[in-house]
């Protein structure tokens, strides 16, 4: 039914690579593509080229609904990691009409360093103030970093509510949690790095927690998905700092997992979109931004994607919520020295063997 509006073509990373080499694209491409899809609009259409860090299963419903709202646009969807997105736009000047990423720091850097175009419409004007920066970066979802636990592993125990609770719990039950804690490897995951740096900025317990996790031989992951899978399978007892929307989308098919939100503070990551300076279809890009900025008016999509649209009443729903603020502050942890030192400290804490 949904597919009546477009035809989806899936090419794997390898295929697309072969494809582009085969066509002998003049521009050599060094950034790594994870996945690529083309949602062709039959007949006359303009093409909207999106580079994004969001998985197909999260974003496909949005594209379908977008094409239904604004017919005549073929969407070309390229999935990359947040660091590869940066490489593509910042270093290689790749041409895309829209960049969607959950790495707020990198999006901020793109805008700050002059790689983004300004855009303004009624929809963007209606966004809460904290959800846009410079009229170039627009946040459209809010995704808290949560704790995902295996209910089995926590049987008979009181559930932790704060980071201090987690520290105490891990210290008191080393035998139960040893080797069964999962967290991001912040050296390879952009979201993991963002959450970790914001944690370190907000509380001193972060470093103690990291040390405790290191002592208990924490497992390091590149993405939220695998972590959730392992919690569901029982390999992990808990996963620290998992993207809430992913966890929520897995609740249905993964019995036995549970999502806990911290009471001390809850980092809320904003997934954001910008129009790169290299865009060839900025008009189409503007339409997509309008569509994303008004996501809260499409309850159906919210259910399909498990994404929480930005809302101005964020603070009202959870007083511990701290949306990570877009702005130059985010450039600090991208500073090369700062990053080196942070990663060194982190590695020292987490790798104690």
């Amino acid at each position: 039914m949904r597919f009546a509006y477009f035809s989806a073509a899936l090419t794997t990373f390898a295929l697309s690579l072969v494809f582009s080499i085969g066509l002998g694209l003049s521009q050599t491409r060094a950034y790594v593509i994870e996945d690529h899809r083309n949602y062709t609009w039959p007949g006359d259409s303009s093409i909207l080229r999106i580079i994004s860090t969001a998985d197909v299963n999260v974003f496909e419903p949005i594209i379908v609904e977008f094409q239904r709202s604004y017919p005549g646009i073929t969407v070309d969807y390229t999935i990359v990691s947040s660091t590869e997105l940066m490489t593509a736009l910042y270093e290689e000047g790749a041409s895309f009409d829209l960049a969607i990423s959950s790495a707020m720091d990198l999006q901020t850097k793109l805008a700050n360093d002059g790689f983004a175009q300004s855009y303004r419409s009624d929809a963007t004007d209606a966004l809460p103030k904290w959800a846009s920066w410079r009229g170039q970066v627009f946040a459209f979802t809010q995704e808290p970093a949560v704790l995902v636990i295996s209910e089995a592993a926590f049987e008979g125990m009181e559930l932790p509510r704060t980071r201090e609770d987690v520290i105490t719990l891990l210290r008191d039950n080393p035998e139960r949690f040893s080797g069964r804690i999962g967290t991001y490897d912040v050296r390879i995951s952009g979201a993991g790095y963002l959450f970790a740096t914001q944690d370190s900025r907000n509380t001193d317990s972060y470093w103690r927690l990291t040390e405790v996790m290191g002592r208990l031989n924490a497992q390091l992951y590149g993405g939220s998905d695998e972590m959730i899978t392992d919690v569901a399978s029982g390999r992990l007892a808990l996963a620290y700092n998992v993207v809430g929307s992913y966890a929520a989308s897995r609740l249905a098919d993964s019995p036995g997992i549970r999502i806990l939100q911290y009471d001390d503070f809850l980092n809320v990551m904003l997934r954001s979109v910008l129009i790169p300076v290299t865009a060839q279809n900025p008009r189409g890009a503007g339409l997509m931004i309008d569509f994303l900025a008004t996501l809260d008016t499409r309850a159906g999509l919210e259910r399909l994607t498990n994404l929480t649209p930005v809302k101005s009443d964020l603070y009202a729903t959870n007083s511990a919520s701290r949306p990570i603020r877009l702005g130059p502050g985010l450039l600090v942890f991208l500073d090369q020295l700062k990053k080196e030192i942070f990663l060194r400290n982190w590695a020292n804490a987490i790798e104690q063997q």
Partner: protein
Amino acid sequence: MFWPAKSSIRRRLTVQLLVIAAALSLVFFLIVRVIADQAATATQDNILLASATSISDALYSERGAVTVEIPYSALSMLGTISQDRVFYRVSEGGRTLTGYDDLPLPDVAPRAAQSRFDTFLYRGETVRSVAVSRTVSSGGSNVDVTVVVAQTRLGLALISSRISFFAAIFGVLFFLVATALSLLAAQSALSPLERLKQSLQRRGAHDLRPVQAELPDELTPLVDALNNFMGRLRASLAQSEDFIAEAAHRVRTPLAVVRAQAEIALRRVERPENKTSLREMIRAVDESSRSAGQLLDHAMVTFRTDALADDEFDLAVVTKSVCDHLLPTAELKDILLIQQFPDTPCPFRGDAILMQNALRNVLDNALKYSPADSTVHIGVDSDDQGYRISFNDQGRGFGSSDVASLTQRFSRGSNVADIVGSGLGLTIADEVARAHNGRLEISSNPKGPGACVSLIFPQP
């Protein structure tokens, strides 16, 4: 400013005040703009300096190398005032430790604990930058490290343009208020002149009394000069009236003697041609003395209208007395006087002597320009509008004379033919009517041939 000598004082005053107000508004606008710009720049400078200082405070040396851990607040504070782009560079003797290595360093590094502000173009936008220096001891030697923090200026431009916008609105409002006030000021400054003008306009044509209005000091010389001038005018008028009266008097007395002698002679002579020429003589003498009388009358009227007596009298009674007075003249020509008065009294306030004089002149004309054996109707009408005293005769009428000019001194109609006259009768009647707020109406007799002359007075 150069003004044509004739341009209005009010316009001059208003334009000058407006020019001043416009200049003040402009100055106000410019001052606010400059202050707003300076305040905005100062705000940005303070935050930039705080940012650069906190970065330089975070410099330290580790294993023989200078390093820095940029505090989160160092850059986040720059995001608090605006959403401007932020650039920074930490460099040690030209070698970039971290940050944007194409961000220009100041030509001369600031000395320790000092800062250098600069504005330049970077990555296509104007940025404001601050550079601070610090000496870090590292590996046994001292190293000079320069920290530059720069920020684009769009947010501040926005703030200062908003302030400028409000300043412009205030400037315009100020100008409008000043305009209204200067119009009022010009109005009130000129109001004594206006009062003077009105008090002069209100007076009658012959009112030469000194101006009494309360006027500001500046106008006193003008009014004094005016009063002085009017005094002289009045004196010279009085003199000439005196002169006329005197002359008329002096002519009348010998004329009376001549007339008496002529009458005696008339009785003595026998020959008809001598009788005829003596009668001609008597008639001419009569006319001359009548003219001299009218000159006297006119001099008196001019004199009395300046200071009108305030008598109470009945118009019908006065009219009747005038008719009685001229009855012998009428009988001489066999002219019938038909008088018609209202049943009710006709009370009136004014100068009875002047009124009598005016009515006599009009009736005298009616008799003079009527043929023998005719009728003159004299009527007094009264209604709520006022009184009308009319004299209808069956004489030659005004013919083609220009009626409007007949009331001028010494003006006579084209219909007079052989009839002698001075041209003062209607002048006297007209002046008296106007001195009593009334008017003289000259027309042809509505009921047949002849003239109709009426004096009309509004109800007091």
